[in-house]
């Protein structure tokens, strides 16, 4: 059977009735990268605040003018002082104390660690530190005394402009809202609570004369803006949603504006008019957000799309760094630089495998949502197909699987991710999908691993002796023995490892036992000066980070 025979099962693509349109140069992309109107509002405010600080640092006249204005306002508050109001104000100011702020930080730390929301934690930490350190630097530069001519009724520390306790409180509360509260109505309500808390704390501190009104206001603006911009730019909700559902968090939310952008991009760039857009097979995918897209045609048909963003690019980088640390440079471990290159590579690999007459989905091209940030790779969908891990595996399917490997060997290609989720059975044909890791001119070791993994996948649904008997028709015993010598636990995709373990069978051992010779295991550890240097660097950085992190937990942020 020809392995390419299964490749032409999708309906012929029918172009949309609307002609392909050129996007004018001034038009924004389907999903522009934005920090929202409120982000610009706060950015404008913080720039104004920075201007005021510069003026205060440079001009004694400006400092005196502000002192006089603040003093006039404070004197009015002093006139309101009564014993009961003072007691109340001390309570209202409690959130802006060192102990309260440290508690807030530690609660966030624990929750973010429990939910493994590392991205949010890093942005939280960075924004919090920026406000604490930046605020301290400003106070020392401006050197503004505490309110003059009024009695200060509560504790204080250091210079007054900006109010560091209020800046830190604002920053920590905004970080809490963006890191812990899901987007939507509940987050809007949380923002109102934060605003009320900040107003009350500011009122308390000015009443007690710990801060002048301008210290309080500028501190809050500074404290709100830094984390707001940090979260919107570095952990945007659509890429890093705050959810409390179990499951992978790498998948993007494809509702709302992204749904509209995907539809627009597919129609505009690939002439596909989407009728339906649904996440599909999320559980089997960690490297992208897979989608099933219904398309208008005659008749209507379905395509498969994979949505890639910078999140996936970073995952790819960390994955390759981890591999380099664990095994050395087994093969090409260079990470992609941009999302565009990542999707271009997958589209290219798909076309290359198809040109080699391998049974892969028909590629439909790439659609751009946000330049350099988000792209879709679109390909043929196989309705009613079944993963090989649950399908009926007969001699024909076994032969097709082994022929796929044989053809890849002959064409100088390796798939590098042979696992049940990437082998679909559709109308008696075996289809190879997800060539994102495919490699041209791979090492003989990698080609051998592809063969062993294919045999192991096939053996999940039948006897090893049957798979071996069929394999001997396309590969000799030396090649098969080498394949199993090259393949051990860690060279198998994790899904395949899991499924083998779940069956309680030693498939690898069964194959090896039936071979006339067992070759010694191929060593996969590759040591080099580069790997040693990298490992030492990572260990040193980790230790230093741990040492540096201790004060973050032990000390108060003020």
């Amino acid at each position, binding site marked *: 059977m020809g392995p390419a025979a299964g490749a032409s099962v999708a309906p012929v693509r029918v172009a949309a009735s609307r002609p392909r349109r050129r996007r004018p140069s001034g038009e924004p992309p389907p999903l522009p990268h934005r920090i929202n109107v409120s982000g610009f509002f706060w950015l404008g405010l913080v720039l104004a605040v920075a201007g005021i600080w510069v003026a205060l640092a440079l001009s004694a006249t400006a400092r005196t003018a502000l002192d006089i204005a603040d003093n006039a306002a404070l004197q009015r508050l002093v006139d309101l002082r009564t014993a009961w109001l003072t007691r109340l104000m001390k309570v209202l100011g409690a959130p802006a104390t060192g102990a309260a702020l440290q508690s807030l930080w530690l609660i966030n730390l624990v929750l973010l660690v429990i939910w493994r929301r590392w991205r949010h934690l890093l942005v939280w930490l960075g924004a919090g*530190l920026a406000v604490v350190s930046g605020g*301290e630097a400003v106070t020392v530069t401006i050197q503004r005394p*505490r309110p003059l001519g009024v*009695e*200060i009724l509560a504790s204080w520390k250091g210079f007054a402009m900006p109010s560091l306790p209020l800046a830190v409180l604002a920053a920590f509360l905004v970080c809490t809202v963006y890191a812990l509260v899901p987007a939507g109505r509940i987050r809007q309500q949380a923002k109102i609570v934060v605003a009320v808390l900040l107003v009350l704390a500011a009122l308390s501190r000015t009443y007690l004369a710990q801060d002048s009104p301008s210290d309080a206001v500028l501190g809050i603006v500074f404290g709100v803006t830094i984390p707001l911009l940090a979260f919107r730019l570095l952990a945007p909700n659509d890429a890093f949603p705050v959810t409390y559902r179990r499951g992978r968090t790498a998948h993007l939310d494809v509702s709302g504006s992204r749904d509209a952008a995907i539809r627009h991009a597919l129609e505009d760039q690939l002439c596909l008019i989407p009728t339906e857009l649904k996440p599909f097979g999320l559980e089997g995918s960690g490297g992208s957000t897979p989608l099933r897209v219904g398309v208008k045609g005659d008749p209507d048909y379905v395509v498969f799309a994979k949505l890639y963003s910078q999140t996936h690019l970073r995952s790819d*980088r960390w994955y390759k760094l981890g591999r380099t640390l664990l095994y050395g440079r087994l093969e090409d471990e260079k990470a992609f630089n941009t999302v565009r290159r990542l999707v271009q590579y997958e589209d290219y690999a798909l076309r290359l495998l198809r040109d080699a007459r391998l049974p892969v989905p028909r590629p439909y091209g790439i659609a751009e949502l946000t330049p350099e940030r988000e792209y879709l790779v679109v390909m043929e969908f196989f309705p009613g197909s079944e993963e090989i891990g649950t399908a009926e595996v007969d001699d024909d399917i076994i032969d097709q699987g082994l022929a796929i490997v044989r053809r890849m060997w002959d064409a100088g290609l390796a798939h590098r991710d042979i696992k049940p989720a990437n082998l679909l059975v559709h109308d008696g044909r075996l289809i190879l999908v997800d060539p994102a890791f495919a490699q041209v001119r791979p090492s003989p070791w990698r080609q051998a691993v592809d063969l062993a993994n294919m045999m192991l996948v096939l053996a999940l649904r039948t006897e090893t002796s049957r798979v071996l008997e069929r394999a001997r028709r396309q590969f000799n015993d030396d090649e098969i023995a080498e394949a199993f010598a090259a393949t051990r636990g860690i060279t198998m995709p994790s899904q395949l490892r899991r499924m083998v373990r779940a069956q309680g069978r030693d498939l690898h051992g069964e194959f090896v036992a039936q071979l006339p010779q067992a070759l010694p295991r191929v060593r996969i550890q590759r040591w080099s000066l580069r790997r040693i240097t990298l490992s030492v660097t990572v260990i040193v950085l980790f230790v230093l*980070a741990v040492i540096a992190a201790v004060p973050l937990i032990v000390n108060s942020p003020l």
Partner: protein
Amino acid sequence: MRPRRLLPLVAALLLATGCSASLDIGAPPGRLPSCPVGDDWPEKENVPPIVLMAQAVPTASWLPCITALPAGITFDDVDTRNGLGRFWLSSGREGKHAIRVALTRECQPEGDAAEPNPQPGITRYVELGGSGPREWYHVFRGGCISYRFDLPTDTSEAAIAAGLGFVSRAAVGRWVSDQSDGRLRLDPPRNQDGPP
């Protein structure tokens, strides 16, 4: 390895160390709290640290300042909070924070009263002997200024002390008032009582 790959780690480390710096080392050093020459300060920006110390101990009739530090001694940083104003000096030989000057409302001086007193109304006590840090106390109405020397015994503490000075609260109050053409004052009016 490409530097880009280590970027997140380095960024995390920098952030973390940046925080520890802000927590452990304190803010960047403030400006020198220098004493007035005659009735005025030659550099106006050096007065705010003294104003802040006056606010820290509202009863203190005298405040610490620096006249001229001897060679090898440099200003480190200042830490002021309600009830306490401190600044530190470094010694070229003994390193950071070798000398601490602290203003408090009260102190319990040890040692004998030493003549001459630096200013009328200020009584100096000098702690004698001992192998650890030694302290000089200056007691006056409403406050106490102490010098803590963490230096070898052969160092001339007197030379360092001579570089330190005192400025009256009244002088600082006058400066605040002059800066605002009389519209601001350092201390609240005497009849302005906060609630207990």
